[in-house]
């Protein structure tokens, strides 16, 4: 039967683009989430938009579950296929179709790698701000489907703020166009808005139209060191209250600082209780002003030390320390569970305090870093998934982390998506009504439930 299936898809995408061996099936059974893999029947790699549309249509006709896979870096199990389903690879759909300098937009196929796109845009003197930590490998399709954000989210927003329009295939393989190349467009329903964050459950993206902006002319980075957690988060609030929106405002706890320092020898103060990494950007004069003001605020609220980067080299050093955070933590134990519970900025001290208690209660090692400016924290649990007793405690701890985040008025996910990993918590955040609404929407658009079933709202 699976032979027959391969043949059917080979007719659409060509022989070399159907991957059905045992080895290949195992290779498309997992993603970056710490969840059990599930074997698809095969993976297919369309090389043209037409083939992509036909693949979707065929899956629907056969009632085969379909999971689109960009680079499989999502941390929520969004690309773990359904058992026996089809994985659609977007790797060969990787053309940047247009970068329009005059009108400041770009059109891309969904398999384009984020960092490559950002670099092409930069070459033309423009700027595409969303910069997820995975940008060196993540795809634009994955970014849109997860509504990915990055270090610059605070000031520049996240992927959804850049999607002007797109075309996608519905389950029948019909091409649906939404949005436009114009800044203003109210033609028809805002379907591209619906697609952002849909995690492959409502349609299969074909081309995406993205807004570009002028790059900032200048920037300045600094590191503020605190001996008290409360003071660090008060500083965050004070900076925002002073009506300064830094491009980035990152936080690192003491465990993370020590681990990063052991690993990267970046010159971080290992006796600090918390660190803030701050960068302001914009017009040179404004940058000077704001940097000075930020420095003054840090001092006033109680930073023990402030290091302002004097040049590009020092600036890079600051950011290298931040970029090394996950790497450094990941080396401590075999399994790394990276969460992204997010709370209103003012609740960061409460969240951080709760995380400390949770670590203690479940006897776990948790390092926390993240985007303080937008309240998006990455409590990172260091464990070994082979130790079943410990991993059970990890799961309980995760439950509690989300309970706390929600009780503080926060959200389940700041940027990694819901996928399979967090679908069970959804009802706690949005309530039964929303879930039913989403399910009815999906049932109408995807009556056979073939588009990435089981994700977001669960089965």
């Amino acid at each position, binding site marked *: 039967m699976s032979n027959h299936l391969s043949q059917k898809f080979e007719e659409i995408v060509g022989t070399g683009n159907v991957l059905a061996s045992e080895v290949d099936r195992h290779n498309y059974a*997992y993603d970056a989430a710490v969840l059990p893999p599930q074997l698809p029947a095969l993976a297919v790699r369309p090389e043209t938009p037409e083939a992509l549309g036909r693949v979707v249509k065929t899956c629907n006709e056969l009632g085969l579950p379909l999971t689109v896979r960009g680079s499989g870096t999502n941390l929520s199990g969004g690309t773990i296929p359904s058992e026996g389903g089809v994985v659609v690879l977007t790797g060969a759909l990787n053309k940047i179709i247009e970068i329009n300098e005059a009108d400041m937009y770009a059109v891309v196929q969904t398999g384009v790698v984020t960092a490559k796109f950002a670099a092409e845009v930069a070459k033309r003197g423009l700027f595409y701000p969303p910069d997820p930590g995975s940008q060196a490998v993540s795809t634009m399709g994955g970014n849109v489907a997860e509504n990915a954000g990055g270090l610059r989210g605070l000031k520049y927003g996240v992927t959804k703020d850049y999607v002007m329009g797109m075309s996608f295939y519905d389950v029948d393989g019909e091409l649906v166009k939404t949005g436009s190349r114009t800044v203003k467009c109210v033609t028809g329903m805002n379907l591209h808005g619906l697609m952002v964050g849909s995690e492959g459950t409502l349609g299969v993206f074909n081309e995406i139209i993205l807004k570009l902006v002028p790059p900032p002319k200048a920037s300045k980075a600094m590191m503020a060191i605190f001996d008290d957690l409360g003071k660090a988060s008060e500083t965050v609030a004070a900076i925002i209250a002073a009506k300064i929106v830094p491009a980035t405002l990152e936080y690192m706890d003491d465990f993370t600082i020590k681990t990063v320092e052991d690993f990267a020898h970046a010159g971080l103060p290992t006796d600090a209780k918390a660190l803030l990494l701050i960068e302001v950007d914009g017009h040179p004069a404004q940058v000077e002003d704001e940097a000075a003001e930020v420095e003054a605020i840090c001092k006033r609220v109680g930073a023990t030390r402030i290091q302002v980067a004097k040049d590009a080299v020092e600036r890079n050093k600051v950011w290298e320390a931040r970029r090394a955070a996950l790497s450094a933590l990941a080396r401590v134990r075999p399994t790394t569970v990276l969460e992204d519970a997010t709370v209103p900025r003012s609740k960061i001290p409460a969240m951080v305090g709760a995380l400390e208690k949770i670590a203690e209660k479940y006897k776990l090692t948790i390092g926390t870093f993240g985007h303080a400016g937008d309240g998006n924290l990455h409590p990172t649990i260091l464990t070994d998934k082979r130790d079943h007793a410990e991993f059970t405690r990890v799961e309980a701890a995760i439950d509690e982390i989300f309970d706390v985040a929600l009780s503080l008025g926060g959200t389940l996910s700041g940027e990694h998506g819901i996928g399979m990993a967090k679908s069970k918590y959804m009802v706690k955040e949005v309530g039964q009504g929303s879930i039913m609404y989403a399910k009815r929407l999906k049932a109408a658009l995807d009556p056979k439930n073939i588009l990435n079933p089981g994700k977001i709202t669960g089965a």
Partner: protein
Amino acid sequence: MSEMRQLVGLLKQIDDQLVACMRCGMCQAVCPIYAETGLEGHVARGKIALLECLADEVIKDPAGVKERLDACLLCGSCQANCPSGVKALDIFFKARAFLTGYYGLPPVKRAIFRGLLQNPKLFDTVLGVASKFQGLFTKPVNDMLGSSCARVFSDLIGGRHFAPLADKPLHDVATQRDTPRGHSGLKIAFFYGCVVDKMFPRIGEAVLKVCDHHGVGVFMPHAQACCGIPALSSGDRETFEKLVALNMKVFAESDFDVLVTPCATCTSTIKKIWPLMAEDLPATTRYQVKELSAKVKDVSAFLIQDVGVTPADVAVSGEPVTVTYHDPCHLKKSLGISAEPRALIGCNPRYKLQEMEGADSCCGSGGSFTLQHYDLSKRIGKRKRDNIVATGAAVAATSCPACMLQIGDMLSQAGDTLAIRHPVEIYAETLAGR
């Protein structure tokens, strides 16, 4: 079936290394094979996942896993870029050894590794004869040596444009020597490596000339054996261990300060792989291996760091020659050495270094990879060639003779007329007597 169980048992030995992979996928950004094929099975994450499946016995197809594992340049880019610190190369070498144990070595490789490599004298003789009859014995020679690292006869395979075997190998033009420390106060043991010996003796001569000039004593025995990497990357641990032992016999007891090689691959093999794979050797050998591997150094690093060579005071007339430098993976990614070869080139004022795009991206050689996957290897090599040519350089320099072969092949097939040089050759040109 019991063999399968044994394989599973062996794989369990590397379980700790396997679970360290958090499947983040960041290795996709740097893997040259993945850049070409885009297949998950061709990137470190995919291979590691398959090995885990094999160890957990949820996959029944070791041949399929082996095939994916073999489609790898062993360039170490994934490891150098892995946030989780996964020791991908250790995993790949060990897994290849296990799988080869399971499947056995193909007869051709068996003949080469066990018959020739393990017997350096015979190896030299066969190649000596072959160099005189290269044109005549195309077919048998190809079959016999097609898969060796030295890839000595690769010029005869599949439309390749490789440098032919040297008329006279290094061990014929330069006699064995054991000269005392001169004014530098330093003495090296010179491990020239198979490819330099048999195809690029001029590099070996340049090393000797530089050492003589700077008063560096040289211990250069001819009984040295291959570093073992071709055998090991084919999974032949037995031959590898024999070769290490042969080299130990020659070098372990001798008096010298640094073991110098002009081959990035030999350097990183001796530095990293020898101690890694020496676990099963007798305790004394293990100890010796550690001592020796601590002493090994790339020739550029030795000249810049230890000898302290500085820009030569030679007359420059006319335009300088433009040279671009390719970072061999085995030097930069494995050992972090990239400044020294450039500094050495910079010591010759007749040359001007022009950096290429992606100087440290793999050239696609990867030992016997190029033999099994010539098409892929060529696609990767073609990018390298384009980047080299885009600099407008007249000379392409690199610190690994295997890269020199690959780059030479690519340039030659494209009809380019660049010269390919080792940094030490470029430096040697500044010395008197030229």
